[in-house]
């Protein structure tokens, strides 16, 4: 791997008595769609704000293109941030918001106009160029913020919970759009989120943070299949943690295969009884009380076969490759 675009090198940041970020070292390659994922207070936002220049690390270095960013104020960093609240200038039109950063650069008027047009086309807002932010819908505001942050052609685009303020249906289409725009521009995107769906659906690499530290860095699939510890396993989705010798066996509910008693297939299976069945249309979520004690959650795709009923005795087949976690 060549020199990474961004390098956090032993970065720490303290607010009063608490460490917001503790000794974080992380490398992000050029062109990546990288996600910092963690619950609130995990330090992900502070880490991003240090890259943007709004916070100063107490320890460690942040390098961009091999250059130490220490002492460089936000307005001199080739990094742009799409704020969670969008932070659009309420007194400026959509076009003027997008042009704001270009004007600060002192570009010639014609070039600014051309770039604004290009950006508005990118986010499909050409027809709303003359509107003020207050006259826009939530999705339109989000796209304005994206166009404004991309207009300066930053080396890195930082996205602070970009989909959090949108309603669910809009979130799906916006996610696809964001991914398409990133692929088209090839700009490095750094996403900060507490929503695992957002991180997994957008990023090609995820760093999970907890209490100021990075727990694991991996592509989404790999992290989901082989979490570093119970925290990551549970943060990425539902999981059964079965105590075994030396740790916990992490079994995802959708990896469990339920069968009526007596129909066991090959492989390991546990005996139990259905205690809860929640029909969800495309799938059904079951809770199985194991004969050996404890409960097991299982999700089955509804493929036309008969559904299992409460109280029905079942065999729960476990995948052979379920990882054993030691922490």
């Amino acid at each position: 791997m060549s020199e990474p675009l961004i390098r956090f090198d032993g970065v720490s940041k303290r607010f009063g008595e608490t460490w917001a970020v503790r000794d974080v070292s992380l490398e992000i390659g050029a062109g990546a769609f990288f996600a910092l994922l963690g619950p609130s207070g995990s330090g992900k936002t502070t880490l991003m704000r240090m890259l943007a220049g709004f916070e100063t690390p107490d320890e460690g270095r942040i390098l961009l293109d091999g250059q130490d960013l220490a002492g460089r104020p936000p307005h001199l960093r080739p990094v742009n941030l799409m704020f969670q609240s969008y932070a659009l200038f309420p007194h400026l039109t959509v076009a003027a918001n997008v042009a704001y950063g270009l004007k600060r650069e002192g570009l010639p008027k014609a070039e600014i106009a051309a770039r604004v047009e290009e950006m508005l086309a990118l986010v499909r807002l050409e027809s709303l160029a003359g509107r003020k932010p207050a006259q826009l819908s939530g999705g339109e505001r989000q796209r304005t913020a994206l166009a404004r942050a991309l207009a300066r052609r930053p080396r890195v685009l930082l996205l602070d919970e970009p989909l959090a303020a949108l309603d669910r249906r809009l979130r799906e289409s916006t996610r696809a759009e964001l991914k398409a725009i990133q692929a088209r521009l090839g700009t490095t995107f750094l996403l900060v989120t507490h929503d695992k769906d957002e991180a997994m659906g957008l990023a090609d690499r995820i760093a999970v943070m907890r209490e100021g530290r990075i727990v694991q860095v991996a592509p989404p699939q790999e992290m989901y299949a082989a979490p570093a510890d119970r925290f990551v396993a549970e943060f990425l989705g539902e999981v059964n943690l079965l105590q075994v010798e030396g740790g916990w066996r992490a079994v995802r509910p959708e990896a469990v295969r339920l069968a009526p008693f007596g129909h066991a297939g090959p492989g390991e299976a546990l005996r139990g009884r259905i205690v809860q069945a929640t029909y969800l249309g495309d799938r059904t979520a079951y809770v199985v009380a194991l004969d050996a004690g404890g409960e097991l959650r299982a999700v089955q795709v509804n493929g036309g076969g008969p559904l299992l009923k409460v109280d029905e005795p079942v065999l729960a087949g476990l995948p052979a490759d379920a990882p054993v976690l030691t922490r």
Partner: protein
Amino acid sequence: MKRPGAERLAFAAYAWLAVFFLAPLALVFKLSLSHTALALPPYAPQLHLGDGLPGLLAFVRALDFDAYGRFVRDRIYLDAYLSSLGYAAVATGVLLAVGYPLALAMARAPRRWRPLLVGAVTLPFWTSFLIRIYAWTAILGPAGLLGSDAAIYIGLTYAYLPFMVLPLYAVLEREDETLREAAADLGATPWSAFWTVTAPLSLPGAAAGALLCFIPMVGEFVIPDLLGGPRTLMIGKLIWTEFFANRDWPAACAAAMALVATLALPIALYRRLERRR
């Protein structure tokens, strides 16, 4: 939008305005249409409701706009208006220049200090206005400034500073900090972020502060009377002289009506500005 009780509340406000503002204004207007007379009160005609309709008609016929004629005949009125507007305009500019940085510093101060700072700005109100202005004579006298234009500007700026600072502080304190961060993120230096984001967004506060100061300053009487010299020409002083020295009530009332008409203009402008936003 409408809540039960809102209409009653609005009615109360309008009733208050009608009783304490419109009725006295109507009275002043009526007085401005009368003539001076050697009587008590010193004007004619006087309305006696006991005379019935013929009495009322005779009263109305005796009213005219003679008192307003002096604005044309006597240049001193026009000069006094212009000079009052001039004093008020310059003082408003000084107040903006002094008050804006003060309000900005207050709004950017640590949150727990702010109530204290607001308290400090309003602290002078705990002492009588008259006494505070009188106290300035003791400061300006030894400095050799008493009676000069500078003394009037100092007095006006001192007395009206809270009215400029408080509306400005109200808008600046509400400013979304992330907007400034967004400006910095997009390449704006702190200076340029101020002029492109903070200043335009605080315009309503500046307009409110300017109006709150400008309007009463045009009609100000105490400050030019105590701090100004014999040649200080301000309309407030002129009205006082007409009332109490010349006992010409109609002339004083006509001058006051003209003042109201003059000041309605900036208010109307402000309202238009408000509606456009």
